[in-house]
């Protein structure tokens, strides 16, 4: 097999040609003597095990303690991590990663290709019972579905160590975004010896061995998690930061107070407070795109209401949603009104022209009324629907507003507030009519959103469209899959499987002495190795 050396991004090839760039203060900045950074955690970190974690905050911690094949640069593009480069075969099915020989675990052992083989098998192995085993399937790694189901042995997974520093991964289908997927924390390596010796306890402070730029020094569940610079990290010479700490504060407003008191270096801004904070602290308040999309899902399954099977009704409900009110009056944090599903800032994504996005709200309402009347609903036969949302202050505000928007349309909405687990349980068993839903990207590419609405996707509303499925199948081998993505979004605007409402922004306060946190990465992943504290 002739291997074709391919560099997907300029950043990656630059990483080859140049040594890693040292983190350096800009002109006029003086490094502080105390190189520490304290970030905010809303909740307790479930685990520091990359294969057992399932939440965003856990990934933030894991990304400091472990390092995958590739990292993300400040804009989210893949750059060398443990791997310095990779080759892709002509059939686009075999990736060969070349690992840097100087990569070490925090106990001094070398990081080898076998560590990745062990780790990916562990992730897929049903015995691990990882909540993220499906990620191996999403990556199209050979035999992943069968391994996850327990039909094949983990040893049959399409990953092998050619030698200590060469890793070969076989895919079942060309996956253009594969390099972006290996920046996901569930693909990170874990140290086999330690995991096998310590069992479930291997992630405790004092036992945990990682290959990231930091090591775990303490973890008080629900209070704080502390990490120190790892001297064995291959690029330790270029890491300025010495200590990082995640403080759990369950209340966002208290967290903001503690930020102002100097106890935290970064915190989320509670909904509605961005405009005033932005005025008061223009150099600290930020609002940057964040790869999640929010909307109301329609239940189109057999268990769903008859009315929603009529596309005119779905369109009417989407048109009547006053997105500007939601973003400008309720959230007020720079979120964008949404008329489609994929987040607008996803790399390479081209927004299609969506007719109703260009209309005025008055036009939309008029159109919505006409469509609803056409579908046979009116004052003598009002449409009644139940809107389910999970407990959260913002979800509630938006739902209450939606109730009013739909009243103008003559639709009676009954609100049904349930806790998260009940909400999820009902979504999964199609036991709802309309439900609040949000989706966050697993990797920086539109398919992470669009795959959701495939007939085989998670698709809790059971939307089915053969044309949509076909486009996404084609996208996998297309030269530029964004053509198919744009067309697929067109179908969503025509078929309206949900009411798109808004697209997220990350609305945070960042201390003005902390530099190097990425503000242009729509995934909002950050690495403490790239940040530093300056003297004020």
């Amino acid at each position, binding site marked *: 097999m002739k291997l074709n050396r391919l560099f997907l991004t300029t950043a990656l090839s630059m990483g080859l040609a140049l040594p890693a760039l040292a983190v350096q203060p800009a002109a006029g900045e003086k490094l502080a003597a105390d190189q520490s950074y304290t970030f905010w955690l809303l*909740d*307790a970190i*479930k*685990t*520091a*095990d990359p294969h*057992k974690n*399932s939440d965003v905050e856990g990934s933030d911690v894991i990304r400091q303690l472990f390092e995958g094949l590739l990292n993300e640069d400040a804009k989210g593009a893949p750059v060398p991590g443990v791997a310095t480069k990779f080759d892709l075969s002509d059939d686009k099915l075999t990736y060969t990663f070349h690992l840097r020989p100087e990569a070490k675990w925090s106990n001094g052992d070398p990081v080898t290709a076998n560590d990745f083989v062990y780790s990916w098998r562990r992730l897929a192995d*049903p*015995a691990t*019972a*990882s*909540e993220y*085993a*499906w990620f191996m399937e999403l990556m199209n790694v050979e035999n992943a579905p069968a391994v*996850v*189901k*327990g039909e094949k042995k983990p040893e049959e997974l399409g990953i092998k160590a050619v030698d200590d520093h060469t890793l070969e991964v076989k895919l079942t289908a060309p996956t253009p975004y594969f390099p972006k997927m290996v920046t996901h924390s569930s693909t990170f390596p874990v140290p086999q010896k330690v995991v096998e010796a310590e069992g*479930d*306890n*291997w*992630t*405790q402070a004092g036992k945990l061995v990682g290959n990231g730029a930091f090591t775990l020094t303490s973890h*008080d*569940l*629900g*209070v*704080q998690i502390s990490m120190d610079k790892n001297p064995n990290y291959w690029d330790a010479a270029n890491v300025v930061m010495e200590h990082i700490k995640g*403080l*759990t*504060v*369950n*209340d966002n*407003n*208290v967290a903001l*107070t*503690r930020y*102002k*008191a100097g*106890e935290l270096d970064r915190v989320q801004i509670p909904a509605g407070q961005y405009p005033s904070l932005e005025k008061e602290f223009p150099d600290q308040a930020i609002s940057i795109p964040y790869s999640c999309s929010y909307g109301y899902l329609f239940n189109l399954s057999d268990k769903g209401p008859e009315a929603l099977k009529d596309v005119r009704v779905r369109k009417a409900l989407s048109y009547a949603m006053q997105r500007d009110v939601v973003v400008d009056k309720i959230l007020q944090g720079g979120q964008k009104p949404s008329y489609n599903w994929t987040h607008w800032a996803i790399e390479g994504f081209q927004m299609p022209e969506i007719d109703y996005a260009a209309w005025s709200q008055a036009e939309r309402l008029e159109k919505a009324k006409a469509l609803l009347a056409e579908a046979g609903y009116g004052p003598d036969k009002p449409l009644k629907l139940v809107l389910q949302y999970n407990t959260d202050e913002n979800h509630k505000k938006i739902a209450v507003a939606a109730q009013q928007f739909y009243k103008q349309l003559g639709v009676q909405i009954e609100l049904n507030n349930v*806790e*998260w*687990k*009940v909400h*999820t*349980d*009902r979504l*999964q068993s199609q036991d709802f009519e309309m439900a609040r839903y949000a989706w966050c990207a697993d990797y920086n590419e539109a398919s992470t959103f669009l795959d959701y609405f495939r007939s085989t996707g*998670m698709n809790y509303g059971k939307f089915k469209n053969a044309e949509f499925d076909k486009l996404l199948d084609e996208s996998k081998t297309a030269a530029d899959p964004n053509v198919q993505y744009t067309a697929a979004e067109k179908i969503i605007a025509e078929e309206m499987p949900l009411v798109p409402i808004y697209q997220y922004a990350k609305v945070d306060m960042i201390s003005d002495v902390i530099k190097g946190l990425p503000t242009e990465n729509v995934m909002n992943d950050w690495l403490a190795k790239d940040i530093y504290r300056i003297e004020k």
Partner: protein
Amino acid sequence: MFGFILRRLAVAIPTLLLLIVLSFLLMHAAPGGPFTQERALPPQIIANLNAKYGLDEPLWRQIVNYVWGIVAHFDFGPSFVYPDRTVNQIIAAGFPVTLTYGGIAFVAAVVVGVSLGVTAAIRQNTWVDYLAVGTSIGAQVLPNFVMAPILVLVFTLWLGWLPGGGWGGPIFWIMPVVALSTSFMASIARITRSSMLEVLGSNHIRTARAKGLSESKVILRHALKPALLPVISYLGPAFVTMITGSVVVDIYFSTGGIGRSFVDSALNRDYAVMMGITILVGALTILFSLVVDVLYAWIDPKIRY
């Protein structure tokens, strides 16, 4: 008395068993489970998780195994949500925290509450009384979820005297203690005042005064003891509530106490942690209502068990 204590302890065991069975059933009746999450897990993984945590067994078998684990090994099982923690570890980390701030808050609430109540009763309808009653009503109507953020705002942001949260030395205890104790203090003051007023009007106090005893002797020796009876019956459950933590205190001050773990475990369907804390609270409640009964007999010689 000894027989009474033994009898009560004997009843405690079936009570706890009943508590375990009922909680177990209620918990499993709630929709969703510990492994319900946004992306539905493949059946194979659910089966593995269920097998790992023994959830694949019939419910009665799970209860028997669970109780056996506690009785034989004092093992409350692994957390279903935090893979590297057991319930014993979670309680061992969180309970000392709530015990510390809850215990101090209890002492503070009793000392201040009883003093306020007694003073108010002795000086009934004077400015002292009005001040004491006013303070306690003020403390009662200011719920701790309002007070906690205000405390952080004043003492952390404005004055910079206290850390805004976390857990460590005594400096971290102050705000949780204040936030937790005020409403209890107010209730204690109110109960003490009304009960003291009642006692002060009774015959044996008139007799004591007629004998020419000094006012301080009348109050401390003859009035206070009987006046405290209703306070004590309030203190038993209040003590357990305080030392097992307040979810509000834990949330606002990030103490890592078990109050927060309890609520989290219910929302996360972390069955084992939820059961562990339920049993802890249940056992403490039974224990301290027994302590209250014993104290009753000690204070009031008329009471015989």
